[in-house]
C-alpha cells in the first residue's frame, strides 16, 4: 500500500496547478497567479475562520507559486499561527512554509522561536522533530541565541528517542556552523563522543557528522573520538553484512556511515596508540581487499556504495601519508580505476591521484600512469573528466616529464573547451617556467601559447616572459630571433605584438647583424602591425621605436618621420600623442650619449613569486591550489632555486605599457584645490563612508619586518603598493611614504590619514601634508611624515588610505612601523663598564625578560644584523659566553634619554632564546623586549 494515497490530494490545489500548466504564455501564467494570490489574500483577511484543511491548501498553493519563482509577501503570519496548532497536519505545513520561505532575518523569528520553544518542551517526539528541523533549516543567529544552550541537553539526555537524537545532533551542527561562538562547549562533548557507540546506526551517523565538524575546530577536545571511530569502523567493515539491520545497502554494510567515519579520521594524524593504529590499518587493508573481490551484485548501486567507501579509505591513506605499503596499494587501485568503464570512477580516480601526486612516497608511482592520463585528455568525452586529467598532469609534472606534459597540454589546448582554456594557459606557463632546463624551450612554449590561445593569455603571462628574458642573458638573442620569426606570420595575436615589441626594443640589436633581420626590416615588420593594434599596444610600440633610435642610429630618420606624422602627433588619444611628441623631441634634442643613458637596457627585475601562480591561486580559490602548490614548491625548491618566497610582492608586475622606459609621465600638477586640512567640507561632500577599514591582513607581519629596517614595501594588493623610506636621528625622524597606483586607472579622492590614539598623540608627534587627491594610473605619489618622539610610547600609528577606483570605494588600513627602537643611539662600551651598569639596573621593574621559541633558523650572523638593525650597538667580547649577544644604546626622546642594555642567550638545542632587557624605565624595557622578541 503506498504511503501517500493519491485520492487524498487537495482538489483546489490540483485544479490550480492544472490551470497554471495549461497557460499558453508567461503573461497568462502571471495573470492566473495574481488572481490566486488575491483570492488567498482575501481568504486570509476574511473574518471567517479557516479550518486547518483550507489553511493547508492555501499554504501549499503559496509554496507552488514560490517554486515557480514568484515573490510571496504574505501568508507568513498565517504560517506562524499554524505552528501553535495542536494538530500535526497544520503544524507540519506551518513548519514547511517557514523553512522554505522565511529567510533568517525575518522579524517573525521571535514568534517562530516561541512556537519552537513550546514544541521542544512538549516531549512529543514528532513535534520535537518538527521544531528541530525548523531550527536546522533556518539556522539563523537569533535561533542560535535562543536554542544553542538547549539542544546539547536534548542530545545527551538519556530518555531522548533515537529519532530526536539524530535531529538534535544535526541541528546543533547547523547552529555551530552559523554561530560557533554561541555553542558552549562543556561536559556534553564527551557524551557526544560516546554516541559513536550507540546502538542505532542513524544516531551514530548524525553524531559522526557533528563530531567531524566540531573536531576540525577543537581537535584536542574530541581526540577520544579516534579510537571509538576506529573500533566502530572495524565492526562494520569486518562484520558479515547481515549484522547491520537495515543499514546494508545493496550488500554493502552501512556505506554512508563508513564514509563519515573515514572522514572523521581525516581530521586527525595517524593514531599514536599502536593497537588502534593496527586495527585501522587492518580495516583499510580489508577495504582495499574487498575491491578485488568479485561483486556481490551487478547493480550499479552495489559498486557505487562499495567504491564510495573505497575512495574515502584512499583519501584517509593519502591524508595519513605514512604507510608506504598502503600508499602504493592505493595508487595501484586508482590506476585500475583510471581505465574503468564507469566514467564516474575514472573521474574520481583522476581527482584522488591529484592529491596522491603530492605525497613523497607515491609521486613516482603516480608518474607511471602518465600515458593513461594523457590518453584520457585526448579521448574522454566528458569535459569534467578532461579537466581532472589536466589537473593531474599538472600535479604529476616534474623535471623529468615536463617537456612531454607541456607539449601534450599545448596540443590539447587547440581543441580544449573554452571554459577551461585560461586555466590551462596559466598552468602551461607555470610549468614551463618552473621546469625549464633551457630557456629557449621556455620562450618557444610561451610563444606557442600565445599563438594557440592568444585570447586567453592574460597580462601576467606575457609580463612574466619579458621579466625572464630580461633577467637571463643567455636567452635574449634567441628570444629576439624567435619573436622576429613569429611576427612574420600574416595574422598574429596582439599579445605577440606586445612581447615582440618589447623584446625587439631591448634586444633587437642582437639579431641586427643578419641582413634578413636588419634594423629597418625589424622596424617595418613591427610597424606593419601598428595600425591593427589597440591603444596600449601602440603606446608600447612607440616606446620600442624610440629605443630603436638609440639602438640603430641608421633608422632614426625613418622613425622620426613616423612620429612626426599627423596620425601620431595629433592622435586623439592623449597617451599616444604625448608619447609621440616627447619621443620626437627627445630624439631631436638629445645627444647620443644622453640618448644612450636615457634609453639604456632595462635593469633586471627583482626576483619575485610568479604573478601567474598568484593568478591561478586566485582563480581556483586559495584552498584548492595552495596546499598542493606549497608541497610542490618544497619539492622543487632545489630545482630552479625555487621561486623566492618574496615576502611582500604577492602579485606585483610592473605595467610595461605604462612605464616601459621608466619615463612615465611625471606626477601631474595638482588639479583643483587641495583638500583643506580641516577636511570638514570634504567630509560633508564626499559620499564615501569615512569609517576606517580594519587592518589589512598580513599587516602585523609586515609591521614586524620593519622593526629592524627602515626601507621596503609595507603593503601591496592588486591596486596599490605602499613603500617606505625613513631615517631617524636622536629623537627626530622623517619618513617618506610612496603610494604607487598599480592599475592603469586613476585613483580619485585619494586621502591617506594618520591615526594616533590619544595616548600616542601626546608621546609621538607626527606632521604631514595632504597629498594630491588624484593618483594617475601607474603613477606614484610621495608623502613626507616628520616625526618627533616626545616621550616613550608603545602603540603604533595607523595609516588609513581611502580612495575611489573605478566606481568603487577602497579603504585600506596598515600599521605604520614607527617604533620606539627607531630612536636608539648605539653606545660602545667595554666589558667592565657593561657589567657595572648592568648591575646598577638591577631593580625588578627595570628588568624584563622573555623566553621564547625561535621562529627562524638560529643563525649567528643574521642575529647580529638584526640587533644592529634594531638600533643598539652590538658589543663583542663582553659576555663570557661567546654564543650570547649583548647590546647597548640610548633611546632619545624629547624629554629624557634612557640608557638600555640587552642580552640575548640562544639555546641551539632547545631552539629557544632568552632575552633580557634592562633600562632605567620600566615601560621602555617592556616595549623593547616585545619588539625584539618578535624578530627571532
Amino acid at each position, binding site marked *: 500500500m*503506498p*504511503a*501517500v494515497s*493519491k485520492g487524498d*490530494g487537495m*482538489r*483546489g490545489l*490540483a*485544479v490550480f*496547478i*492544472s490551470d497554471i*500548466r495549461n497557460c499558453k504564455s508567461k503573461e497568462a501564467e502571471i495573470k492566473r497567479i495574481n488572481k490566486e494570490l488575491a483570492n488567498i489574500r482575501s481568504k486570509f483577511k476574511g473574518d471567517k475562520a479557516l*479550518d*486547518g*484543511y483550507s489553511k493547508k491548501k492555501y499554504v*501549499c498553493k503559496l*509554496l*507552488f507559486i514560490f*517554486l515557480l*519563482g514568484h*515573490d510571496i509577501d504574505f501568508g507568513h503570519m498565517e504560517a506562524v499561527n499554524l505552528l501553535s496548532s495542536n*494538530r500535526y*497536519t497544520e503544524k*507540519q505545513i506551518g513548519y*514547511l512554509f517557514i523553512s*522554505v520561505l522565511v*529567510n533568517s532575518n525575518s522579524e517573525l523569528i521571535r514568534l517562530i522561536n516561541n512556537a519552537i520553544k513550546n514544541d521542544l518542551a512538549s516531549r512529543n517526539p*514528532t513535534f520535537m522533530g518538527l521544531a528541530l*528541523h525548523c*531550527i*536546522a*533549516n533556518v539556522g539563523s543567529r537569533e535561533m542560535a541565541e535562543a536554542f544553542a544552550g538547549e539542544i546539547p541537553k536534548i542530545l545527551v539526555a538519556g530518555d531522548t528517542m533515537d*529519532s530526536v537524537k*539524530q*535531529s538534535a545532533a*544535526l*541541528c546543533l551542527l*547547523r547552529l555551530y556552523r552559523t554561530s560557533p561562538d554561541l555553542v558552549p562547549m562543556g561536559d556534553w562533548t564527551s557524551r557526544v563522543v560516546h554516541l559513536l557507540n550507540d546502538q542505532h546506526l*542513524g544516531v551514530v551517523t548524525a553524531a559522526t557528522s557533528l563530531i*567531524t565538524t566540531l573536531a576540525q575546530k577543537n581537535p584536542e577536545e574530541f581526540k577520544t573520538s579516534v579510537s571509538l571511530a576506529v573500533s566502530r569502523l572495524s565492526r562494520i567493515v569486518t562484520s558479515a553484512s547481515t549484522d547491520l539491520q537495515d543499514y546494508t*545497502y545493496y550488500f554493502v554494510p552501512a556505506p*554512508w556511515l563508513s*564514509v563519515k567515519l573515514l*572522514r572523521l579520521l581525516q581530521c586527525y594524524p595517524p593514531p599514536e596508540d599502536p593497537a588502534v593504529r593496527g586495527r585501522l590499518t587492518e580495516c583499510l587493508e580489508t577495504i582495499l581487499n574487498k575491491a578485488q573481490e568479485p561483486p556481490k551484485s551487478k547493480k550499479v*548501486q552495489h559498486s*557505487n*556504495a562499495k567504491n*564510495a567507501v573505497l*575512495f*574515502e579509505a584512499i583519501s584517509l591513506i593519502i591524508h595519513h601519508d605514512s604507510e608506504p605499503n598502503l600508499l602504493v596499494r592505493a595508487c595501484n587501485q586508482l590506476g585500475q580505476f583510471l581505465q574503468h568503464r564507469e*566514467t*564516474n570512477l*575514472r573521474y*574520481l580516480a583522476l581527482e584522488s591521484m591529484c592529491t596522491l601526486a603530492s605525497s613523497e612516497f607515491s609521486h613516482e608511482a603516480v608518474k607511471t600512469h602518465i600515458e593513461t592520463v594523457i590518453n584520457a585528455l585526448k579521448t574522454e*568525452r566528458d569535459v*569534467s*573528466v578532461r*579537466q581532472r586529467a589536466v589537473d593531474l598532469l599538472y600535479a604529476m609534472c616534474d623535471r623529468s616529464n615536463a617537456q612531454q606534459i607541456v607539449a601534450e597540454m599545448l596540443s590539447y589546448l587547440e581543441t580544449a573547451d573554452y571554459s577551461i582554456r585560461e586555466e590551462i594557459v596559466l598552468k602551461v606557463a607555470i610549468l614551463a617556467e618552473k621546469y625549464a632546463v633551457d630557456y629557449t624551450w621556455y620562450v618557444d612554449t610561451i610563444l606557442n601559447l600565445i599563438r594557440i590561445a592568444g585570447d586567453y593569455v592574460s597580462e601576467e603571462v606575457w609580463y612574466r616572459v619579458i621579466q625572464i628574458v630580461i633577467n637571463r642573458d643567455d636567452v635574449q638573442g634567441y628570444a629576439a630571433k624567435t619573436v622576429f620569426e613569429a611576427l612574420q606570420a600574416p595574422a598574429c595575436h596582439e599579445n605577440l605584438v606586445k612581447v615582440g615589441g618589447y623584446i625587439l626594443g631591448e634586444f633587437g640589436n642582437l639579431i641586427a647583424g643578419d641582413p634578413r633581420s636588419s634594423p629597418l626590416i625589424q622596424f617595418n615588420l613591427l610597424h606593419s602591425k601598428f595600425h591593427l593594434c589597440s591603444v596600449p599596444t601602440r603606446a608600447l610600440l612607440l616606446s620600442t621605436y624610440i629605443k630603436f633610435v638609440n639602438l640603430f642610429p641608421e633608422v632614426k630618420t625613418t622613425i622620426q618621420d613616423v612620429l612626426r606624422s599627423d596620425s601620431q602627433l595629433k592622435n586623439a588619444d592623449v597617451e599616444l600623442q604625448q608619447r609621440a611628441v616627447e619621443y620626437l623631441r627627445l630624439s631631436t634634442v638629445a645627444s647620443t650619449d644622453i640618448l644612450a643613458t636615457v634609453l639604456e637596457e632595462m635593469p633586471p627585475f627583482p626576483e619575485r613569486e610568479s604573478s601567474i601562480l598568484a593568478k591561478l591561486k586566485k582563480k581556483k*580559490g586559495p*584552498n584548492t591550489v595552495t596546499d598542493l602548490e606549497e608541497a610542490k614548491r618544497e619539492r622543487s625548491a632545489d630545482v630552479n632555486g625555487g621561486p623566492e618566497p618574496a615576502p611582500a610582492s604577492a602579485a606585483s608586475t610592473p605595467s610595461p605599457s605604462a612605464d616601459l622606459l621608466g619615463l612615465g609621465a611625471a606626477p601631474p600638477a595638482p588639479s583643483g584645490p587641495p583638500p583643506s586640512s580641516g577636511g570638514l567640507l570634504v567630509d560633508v561632500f564626499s559620499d564615501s563612508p569615512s569609517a576606517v577599514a580594519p587592518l589589512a591582513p598580513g599587516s602585523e607581519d609586515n609591521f614586524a619586518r620593519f622593526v629592524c629596517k627602515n626601507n621596503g614595501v609595507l603593503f601591496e594588493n592588486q591596486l596599490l603598493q605602499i613603500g617606505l623610506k625613513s631615517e631617524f636621528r636622536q629623537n627626530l625622524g622623517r619618513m617618506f611614504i610612496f603610494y604607487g597606483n598599480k592599475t592603469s586607472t586613476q585613483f580619485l579622492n585619494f586621502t591617506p590619514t594618520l591615526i594616533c590614539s590619544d595616548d600616542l598623540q601626546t608621546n609621538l608627534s607626527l606632521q604631514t601634508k595632504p597629498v594630491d587627491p588624484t593618483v594617475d594610473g601607474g603613477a606614484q605619489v610621495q608623502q613626507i611624515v616628520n616625526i618627533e618622539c616626545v616621550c616613550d610610547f608603545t602603540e603604533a600609528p595607523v595609516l588609513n588610505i581611502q580612495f575611489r577606483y573605478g566606481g568603487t570605494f577602497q579603504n585600506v588600513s596598515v600599521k605604520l612601523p614607527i617604533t620606539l627602537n627607531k630612536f636608539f643611539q648605539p653606545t660602545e662600551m667595554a666589558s667592565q663598564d657593561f657589567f657595572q651598569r648592568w648591575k646598577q639596573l638591577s631593580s625588578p621593574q627595570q628588568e624584563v625578560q622573555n623566553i621564547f621559541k625561535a621562529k627562524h633558523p638560529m643563525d649567528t650572523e643574521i642575529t647580529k644584523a638584526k640587533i644592529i638593525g634594531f638600533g643598539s650597538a652590538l658589543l663583542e667580547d663582553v659576555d663570557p659566553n661567546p654564543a650570547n649577544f649583548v647590546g647597548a644604546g640610548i633611546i632619545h626622546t624629547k624629554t629624557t634619554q634612557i640608557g638600555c642594555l640587552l642580552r640575548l642567550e640562544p639555546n641551539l638545542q632547545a631552539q629557544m632564546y632568552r632575552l633580557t632587557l634592562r633600562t632605567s624605565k620600566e615601560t621602555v624595557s617592556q616595549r623593547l623586549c616585545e619588539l625584539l622578541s618578535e624578530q627571532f
Partner: protein
Amino acid sequence: MIKAILIFNNHGKPRLSKFYQPYSEDTQQQIIRETFHLVSKRDENVCNFLEGGLLIGGSDNKLIYRHYATLYFVFCVDSSESELGILDLIQVFVETLDKCFENVCELDLIFHVDKVHNILAEMVMGGMVLETNMNEIVTQIDAQNKLEKSEAGLAGAPARAVSAVKSMNLPEIPRNINIGDISIKVPNLPSFK
C-alpha cells in the same frame, strides 16, 4: 555539506528546490536556471559530477546529479561530501519516493510538493544527511500519514465530503493537465467520459 537540492524537468521547470544556505529569492531562481543550463547540456553516459556554477559558490562546490526519465535530481555539495555517497543518496531518495507514491512520476512531485518536502526532511536536515535507511524513512512517513488520517477523520471529514461531491461533476482532471512533457509513467487517473 549539502548546499541545495534541486529537482527540475527536462525543460528546466523546477519541481522542488531546497536551499540549506540562505540565498535571496532571486538568487535561488538564478541558481536553478544556471544549474539546469550546466546539467542539461551534458550527454547521457558522461559522469555524474561536475564543478558547481558561479552562483552556488564556484569550483569548490560540486554538482552531483542523476537523470531519471523526465527529471533531473541535482545535489549541490561542498568538498566535504563523498561524490559516490551522494549519488547513492539520490538513489535512496528516488527509491523512497517510489515506495511512498507507488511508481512515482513527475505529476506526483507537482501535486504533492508538501509530501516530497516531508520525505526529504526525513533524509536531509540542515544540509546534513539524517537517515539513509529506506525502511526507517518509510516508517516515519507512514507514521505521519497515520497521524494525518486520524486528524482528518475528526475534522477533515466534512471538507472531504464536499470535495468528493464536487469532484463528481468534474470533467476528468487529467485532461486539464498538460502532460506533453511527461514520459515516466502517467498515472491511470480515472476517466469520467
